Each structure stands twice: as C-alpha cells, then as structure tokens.
C-alpha cells in the first residue's frame, strides 16, 4: 500500500520542488510550528531536567548516588522503589494483555450482546482514579463488603488486608487499564482476516491449532504494542498508589518519589528520579520489542509450514 503511494509522493514533491525554491519544498514549512513547539516545550525541559539532575549538592553524580544509597530527604527506600514500580507495572500489563487477548479474540466476530459487553467493559475509562480508589476502599477495605461477607460467613477471624498494599494497587491498575487493552486488542483481532482461519479449518486445523498457528502470529505485533502502551500507562501512575496503596511503604512508586522531592524543592534529586524512571521504562520497552522481533520471525515460519 505504502509502496504504491511512494512514487506518487516523490513525483508530487519533485514537481513542487521545481516550482518553488530548489531543493526544499514549501510544504516543508508546515512542519515548522509543530517542531518548534516540541523543541521549546518538550526537548528543552527534558534536557534542562537531565542537566539539573547532575547539579546535586555534592558533585555531578551526587543526586544519583543519593538515590541508590536511599539518602533522599523525604523518602527512604528509593532504590527499592524501582523494583516496586517495575513489579506493579509488569504485573498489571501482563494481566491486562493476558485477559484482553482471549476475550477480544472470541469477540472478533458477530456475537450476541457485543455492543453491551463492549460498552460495559469501557465504563472504567470514565471513572477516574479517585472513583476507582474509593470503590476499592468501599468494597475491599477493612470495613468493605468483601470483608463483611468473609467475617459473617466465618471464613476469616479478622479483616483481610486487600487494600493499603500491593494487591489493592494492582487491582485498581487492572480495573482502569483493562478497557484500554481490550479496545486495542479488539481492533487488532477484528483486523485478522477470517478467511485465513477458515482456510486453516478446511485443511483440518482444530480451534487450538488455528489460534496458535494462524491468529497468534498475526496478532503478535498488536499484542506487543498493547503490552507496551499498557506498561507505559501503569508505570507512570501515582494517584492510585497513593490512594489505594501505602506510598510510604509497599507501594512507594518512582513517580511519587519524584513528586515529593519536587514538592520539597529538591530539584536535583527530583530530576534524577525522573531520569531513572525514563531509563528503566525505555529499557523495558526496548527489551520487549527486541524479544518480539525474535519471536515473530519464528512464528511466521511455523505458520507457513
């Protein structure tokens, strides 16, 4: 598709180039406002932040040293928070994508009640973090419905801690993140041509083989994108870690530390935390994409054979 358009484009820009100033098409000027804005308000602050992170009180790398030595003014446990954030985000995005894939795959065709199911699943998109957090505390909290039920039935002697810890934050990340993964996966799943699977069925492939050999390899690029975007969403979030979890302990996430340092006017350490956050997240995304490029080739070959 793009190959067919490419010569057209080249011909068009060539004609314009000849008509206008030689070499540079006048249409190129259209990019300038957008690029200028991004340079001024994205790249400059980003570089400024990186520069700031090297201006700690005790030398260029002191802010980073403080981070890894847990010496921040407001927080103790900054080094561990990398693991906390990673664990939360990875678990949330694995659950989201793992649940979205089979459901979206089964809903790709015409199914009774599809519109209602889709609309219901999308409700969390409108709720907002505070709503979800409040619901978690009302339902799962120490005085919530679940604990009341457990106590009434006699399954537990004292309220089970479902909020104020890792589980609570993970659940709220799943509630708010799943609709997004589902919507994306539904788009990718309905993009797979059904005739491919019908052909496989004619050739004698059972449902399992059709899914593993035909649908999964075709869905893998979409699956990777969904995982990455869902990871990005879960990695940066701190309202739910504060409201449902316990941000002084088990769910102290990186963005919370960056914010606290910023609020305490510790700009060097706040920037260092932000830089570490970006590096960790980009490392995970890079790893996933590298893994996919290896997996993808293998699966396609399997599908052909």
């Amino acid at each position, binding site marked *: 598709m793009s190959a067919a358009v490419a010569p057209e484009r080249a011909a068009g820009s060539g004609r314009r180039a000849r008509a206008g100033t030689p070499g540079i098409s006048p249409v190129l000027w259209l990019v300038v406002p957008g690029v200028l804005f991004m340079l001024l308000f994205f790249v400059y602050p*980003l570089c400024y932040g990186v520069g700031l992170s090297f201006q700690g009180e005790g030398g260029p790398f002191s802010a980073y040293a403080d981070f890894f030595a847990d010496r921040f003014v407001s927080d103790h446990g900054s080094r561990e928070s990398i693991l906390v954030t990673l664990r939360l985000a990875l678990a949330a995005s694995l659950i989201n994508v793992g649940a979205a894939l089979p459901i979206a795959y089964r809903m790709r065709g015409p199914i009774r009640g599809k519109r209602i199911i889709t609309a219901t*699943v999308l409700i969390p998109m409108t709720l907002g973090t*505070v709503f979800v957090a*409040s*619901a978690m505390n009302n339902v799962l909290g120490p005085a919530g419905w679940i604990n009341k039920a457990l106590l009434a039935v006699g399954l537990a002697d004292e309220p089970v801690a479902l909020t104020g810890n890792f589980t609570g934050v993970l659940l709220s990340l799943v509630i708010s993140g799943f609709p997004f993964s589902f919507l994306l996966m539904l788009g990718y799943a309905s993009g797979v041509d059904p005739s491919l699977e019908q052909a496989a069925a004619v050739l004698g492939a059972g449902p399992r083989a059709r899914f593993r050999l035909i649908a999964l390899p075709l869905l893998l690029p979409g699956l990777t994108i969904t995982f990455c975007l869902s990871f990005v969403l879960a990695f940066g979030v701190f309202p739910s870690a504060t409201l449902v979890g316990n941000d002084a302990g088990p769910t102290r996430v990186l963005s919370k530390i960056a914010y606290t340092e910023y609020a305490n006017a510790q700009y060097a350490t706040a920037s260092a935390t932000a830089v570490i956050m970006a590096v960790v*997240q980009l490392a995970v995304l890079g790893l996933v994409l590298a893994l996919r490029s290896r997996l993808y080739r293998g699966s396609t070959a399997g599908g052909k054979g």
Partner: protein
Amino acid sequence: MTADTAVRRRITLTGAVTWTGLWAFIGGLLIAVTAVVLSSFTQQLSSGWLPGALTTKWYSGAWSYFDLPSLLTTTLLVALAVVALSLLVAVPTAFALSRLSFPGKRLVMLLFLVPQVIPTMSYAVPLATLVYQLRLNDTVPGLVLVNLVPSLPFAVLVLIPFVDQIDPRVEQAARVFGAGTRQVFVRILAPLMVPGLLAAGVLTLVRVVGQFELTFLVAGPNSQTIVVALFGASLQAGQLPSQQIDAMAVIYMLTTLVLLLIALRFVDPTSVAARTRR
C-alpha cells in the same frame, strides 16, 4: 460458515474460563460503581450492609465546598483550548509528514513519538519549573501550555494515517486547476479529513480531561480542574467525609461520561478502525 458456527456453539474449557473472567470483571465493576454511588447518597456511615438514611446533601455540598461551576468552567476551557490548538498545529504537521520525505524525517517522527513512551513525570517536573519561570503557573494559559506538550504529538500521530488515506492525486488535480496551498487545505483536505479530525479531537479531549500529573504540578487555587481538586480532596482524607468525596467522584464520572457520549455520537471508534485498515 457452518463449520464456524458449529465450532462456536461447542463449549470448551478455554472458552468457559474466558467468559467467566469477562463476567467476573463486569460483575466486579458493577459492584464497585454501586458501592460509590450508594455511599455518595449515604447520610451517615454505619457498620451495616446498607445505608440507613439517604440524602442528597453531599451533592449540594459539592456545589458549595468545591465551587463546582468554576471547576467545570476551567476543565472545559482548558480541554477545548488544548483540542483546538493541537488540531490547528497538528493538521499541517501531519500533512507534511505524510506527504513529504525529507532528510531528518525520522528524527522529527521521533520527536513526536518520544512523549508517548516516556513517563509523564520525567518531563513534567522540569516543564513545571519552566512554567513557573514564565509566571504562568496557576493560570489557564499555563494549564493549556503544559497539556499541549503530550496532546500535540498525540494528535499528529493519530492524524498521519488519515492523511495517508487521502489520494494525493486529488490535491494535484486541485492544483492543476489553480488552487493555492490554502485553498487545497480548506476546500479539499479539510472536508476529506473530517473523520480524522473528529477522532483526534475526541481522543485528545478525553486525555486532557483525565490528565493528572501535568495539570497537578502547574495548577493552583485559582486554576483547578476537576481531577486535581478531587485528588487534593481525597488526599486530605480526615478533613472531608468520604461521602463528600464520593459525590464529587460521581460528578466527575458523569462529566466524562457525557463528554464521551457526545463524542461517540460523532465518532464510532470501531468504524474508524475499520476504515483505516482498508
């Protein structure tokens, strides 16, 4: 076709697990929504299962305590301004990026891609510092400025596939008949891009209304959006009754719901996706 329906009717283990999971999610969701809505009408929290007396006083409280009209005005003002400005700049950018190939194009694409994949906090902190230096903190223009940073590149990325679909020969034909760049934009491209503009506009609007980190760092007492006010109130858990916060959370939910429903009247996301594929 018959083979396909026969397969779907058969109950498999994986199918049962999938559907049970889906219904568990939907059930949990409905319980969660019920819990918060019920709590927002509760007079007094009790140890029983259901509230004793119902009241609407938390909703009138939302009006007086939170100054809801000004919160709504700020939220909508910021959201609409960000959407309008994003589209205004993103349309020409997406057009040029879709039609032209030039040295450094990959770098420009990267410039619009990176804000989507790095954590908001990592640029929010220095950006907020910059906004303070410009003395734009706690003002609506300041909020618009910080929200444009993720919204503009997002709109560009959403719009590029839509421009790709428009046949360049249509523009060339218009140019042959003497249309200038401005005329090509207004009379040829704009009508053809309406679905793309709506999709990008709606998605940007929803993102801006829900955007927390950036707005939170720049907002002040005079320029609060609903999300920021709500989070601030729920942080001071002891000072406000939880029913008051729940009432506010319900109001926020209704606001986004109304925006989303209005948006979905104009755009059907599945049909947009279907058109993109072809």
